[in-house]
């Protein structure tokens, strides 16, 4: 029965596969593409997703001419910008909210007859991964594609965690079921086969309760450890530290909000890395701010940047250095590391070239207090941008940061062995151990399910009770 699924998918003109986490969805897509004739357009949502599918295709030696993988948005952008008069879309690099108006423009364009012939010339069929993450606009775009080419979509209503991001654009799952007939479900927990298969089966078992928004009882669940407590920062730090002794095994600690992640990372002595989003929004924002300043203002802004992303800075000594730099006084600091910082800031003050930022960042890093990163990614992102910008050739710091973002998005990221993240950021990633630092963070079934299904060995939950009450995100929002 399970073996027939890839062929059924390949033969289907318009259908849906419900794919719980870790049950071989990417594998199924790869296999189904093999059974198809002609080139398939495989759409997903994130660049990490694109990379995962591409890697799998390569691993299975599927010839490159048999598929093209890209995000729905980049596909829409490629078409909409190619024909601006017809789509009404002119923004080459949309940002923030602009993305949400992209899909209607692209959908309008896709209705043109000539686009249909381009689609037919280019592709024989379409696959859409992570369908639960679609916005209403993306769904309508896919429906338009489905009117031209065979279209199979893959998704899981329980992994729909973008309610906060997508808001009223969130696609209700019943609309997916109305538009696509069910081809089948994935039913085998492949991800857990080697490490903790029973955990995998348990995660499948609790799906009906989660889907119904009922209570989940963690007691006795295979590989699930409940640390019964009222979670607080001390306990959270201790819980994280308890994993330091595990050699060679990966862990993701979960909190709901990114500032919490940054805070914990800053307290954990660089042992845990705060996981950033691939959009690099923080980096871009700082690059833009720094670029607009010069002289003493830029000096002060760099100090703010350091204060934001590093902990354990010697505030008083730094204040004195900045005071001397800004007011053109003699440096009184005697410590070599502070002298180095002073020299660095001096050249930032007198030279607007972005390259002067690099010695300053390096000087901070080598302070004898050994500062701890709240986010390595933002820090080194800025350093990289400064390195690749060029005041004389006109590549601004912001442009260089933008380029850095593109590289990050294209190459995909391997999470650090130990990181702190939100469910939104690590959707699709896997680790050995998951640590839910505060069960109160995750009251919606979707976020909880995503956290629980990241780990193949154990899940540790800091919770006052071993029974978790959940609600469907749709009823919470």
């Amino acid at each position: 029965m399970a073996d027939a699924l890839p062929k059924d998918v390949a033969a289907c003109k318009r259908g849906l596969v419900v794919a719980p986490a870790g049950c071989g969805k990417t594998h199924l897509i790869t296999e189904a593409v093999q059974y198809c004739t002609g080139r398939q357009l495989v759409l997903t949502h994130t660049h990490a997703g694109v990379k995962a599918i591409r890697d799998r295709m390569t691993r299975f030696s599927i010839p490159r001419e048999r598929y093209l993988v890209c995000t729905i948005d980049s596909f829409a952008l490629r078409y909409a910008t190619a024909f601006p008069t017809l789509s009404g879309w002119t923004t080459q690099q949309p940002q923030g909210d602009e993305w949400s108006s992209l899909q209607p423009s692209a959908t309008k364009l896709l209705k043109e007859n000539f686009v249909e012939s381009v689609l037919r010339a280019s592709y024989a069929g379409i696959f859409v991964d992570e369908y639960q993450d679609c916005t209403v606009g993306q769904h309508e775009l896919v429906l338009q594609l489905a009117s031209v080419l065979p279209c199979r979509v893959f998704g899981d209503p329980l992994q729909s965690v973008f309610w906060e991001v997508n808001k009223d654009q969130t696609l209700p799952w019943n609309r997916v079921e109305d538009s696509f007939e069910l081809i089948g479900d994935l039913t085998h927990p492949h991800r857990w086969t080697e490490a903790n298969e029973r955990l995998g089966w348990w995660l499948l078992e609790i799906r009906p309760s989660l889907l119904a928004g009922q209570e989940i009882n963690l007691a006795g669940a295979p590989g699930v450890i409940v640390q019964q407590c009222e979670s607080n920062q001390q306990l959270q730090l201790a819980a994280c530290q308890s994993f330091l002794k595990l050699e060679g095994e990966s862990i993701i600690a979960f909190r709901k909000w990114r500032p919490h992640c940054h805070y914990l990372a800053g307290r954990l002595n660089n042992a845990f890395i705060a996981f950033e989003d691939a959009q690099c929004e923080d980096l871009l924002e700082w690059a833009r701010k720094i670029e607009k300043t010069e002289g003493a203002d830029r000096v002060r802004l760099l100090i703010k940047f350091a204060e934001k992303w590093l902990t354990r800075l010697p505030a008083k000594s730094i204040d004195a250095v900045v005071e001397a730099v800004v007011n053109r006084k003699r440096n009184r600091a005697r410590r070599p590391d502070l002298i180095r910082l002073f020299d660095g800031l001096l050249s930032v003050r007198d030279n607007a070239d972005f390259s002067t930022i690099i010695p300053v960042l390096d000087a901070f890093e080598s302070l004898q207090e050994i500062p701890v990163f709240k986010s390595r990614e933002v820090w080194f992102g800025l350093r990289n941008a400064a390195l690749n910008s060029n005041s004389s050739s006109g590549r601004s710091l912001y442009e260089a940061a933008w380029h850095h973002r593109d590289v990050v998005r294209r190459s995909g990221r391997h999470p650090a062995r130990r990181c702190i993240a939100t469910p939104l950021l690590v959707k699709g990633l896997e680790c050995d151990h998951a640590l839910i630092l505060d069960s109160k963070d995750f009251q919606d079934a979707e976020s909880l399910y995503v956290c629980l299904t990241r780990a193949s060995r154990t899940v540790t939950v800091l919770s006052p009770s071993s029974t978790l009450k959940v609600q469907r995100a749709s009823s919470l929002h």
Partner: protein
Amino acid sequence: MIIRHLRIENFRGVRSLDWHLAGRVICLVGPNDSTKTAILDAIELVLLPRGYIGLTDADFYQAEVANPITIEATIGEVPTELLVEPEKFGLYLRGYESGKEIHDDPAADCESVLTVRFSMDKELDPTWTVFKVSQESPKPIRWRDRERLGLARLGADADRHLTWGRGSALSKLTEENTAAGQTFVEVARTAKQVVANADLQQLSDAASKAKESAKDLGAEFGNLRPGLDISGLSLGGSVLGLHESDVPARLWGLGTRRLAALAIQQRGVGQHSILVIDEIEHGLEPHRIRHLLRRLHRGLDGKERTVGQVIVSTHSPTAIIELPIQNLRFVRSNDGLTTITCVKADRLDILQSIARSHSPAFLGRKLLVCEGATEVGLCRGLEESWARANEGRHPTHEGFVTIDGKGRTVAPGVAQELKRVGYEVAVLADSDEPLDPTADDLTAQGIPVFQWKDDMSTEQRLAKDLPLDSIQALLDEAYREIDTESVLGQVANFCGIANLGTRGTKFAEWLATDLTAEKARDALARAAKKNGWFKNVSLGTRLGEIVADALPVIPASPSAETLEKLMSWIYG
């Protein structure tokens, strides 16, 4: 595939061309320096199904390498394989609004087209790209993809396609690419064998001597013998070619070679090809030209071509007769600005009949639209004298051609349309009845009008001005061509003298108190006009010759004055 629009900048004699092609079968007509060949070469270059070209500084307009060569062909009916995105050009489609404009996006009422651009700057580094304004940068198009655009050119190198040489149409038609290569290997092996087995005593002796001497110097050989080094045999694909029995293609007649090369190319690229042919008549008898054009224009089923495109140039009247006039394009070049025009829809009928009856006219440069056959004959008869008066330069060398404009209401329109499509045009007309449109209108449009003084017909003016012996000569010609009795009867009608014939056949004999010379001349003119004596070709020509002989005697006459102006225009 079909080219909808062509733009050329700074290529050969073309500083600038902007041309909507509008049609599947297009025949370029124009004088020798009108850049027809440059246009065909540009089409070949922009769609070149190969990677190599050998352009030099001389291929830039006025050899001015500072101004880059740009050729843009906007092509419709794009093959599906080229639409594959993102690798190919599906997202580079533009819209063509027929005959008007290229829109960057294909709007609803537009055809989807691709714009292919060739460009070369002073580094002589050619680039081929597909271009669309909304795309950040043009996308290179490799020769393999250009090959799919299906260009086939029949130019000076037609013979190449009759061999299995590299890139020839015959090679492309050969399914297994290695077939030709395999043949060479076997030819070489056999040749080697033949030499090895031959009795080559003198060569062997020389080899032995060489062996001995080499040994003296310390180089020892075993069996040193003559053999064939096949790398020295230049067995390029071009030596393997089509033969008819034992006759290689290069010894066939020119026309046959061209037809065969064309057939092979068409077979290779298929019906959807864009076929470009220089001087289609080259080497072909008229009946073969006609057959070829008919086949290119219509399919075997006799229906007009519905796929692909044929673009030819010609200097042949046969081609002009064979093709409907709407397929002709008139090419003109002025100070590097090339313009290409076609006949307006509402003038197609009258120009079509001109093309059928006066096909050489379209190959001329100075076209004189005559009101009728009389004026055509008159000019024909005068041509030799004009040549004598101009150091032997015959009017035809000036590209002078006369056209029968079929009357005062048709001729002006013919002249206007010919002027519009780029010819230098004048009108020679009677003055007894006004032209429509009027002579003033024509003059205002840059069309000189030559008419006779005092509102006279051609016959009246000449009859009034010619000396007596010329009049008699005309009369004698008329007697001979028509018959004496009829001629006398016709003149008698206009004199009002019933038995004119009884006075004799000489003009001088007619004159009496009841018939003055003036009246007799007028009667003669009217009879000639009424009965169309000189519309007869030979009689019309004789008229011209007689006038030519008489002109030196009557240099100040109104006739001479008009004809003098006409001659100045021809040689102007």
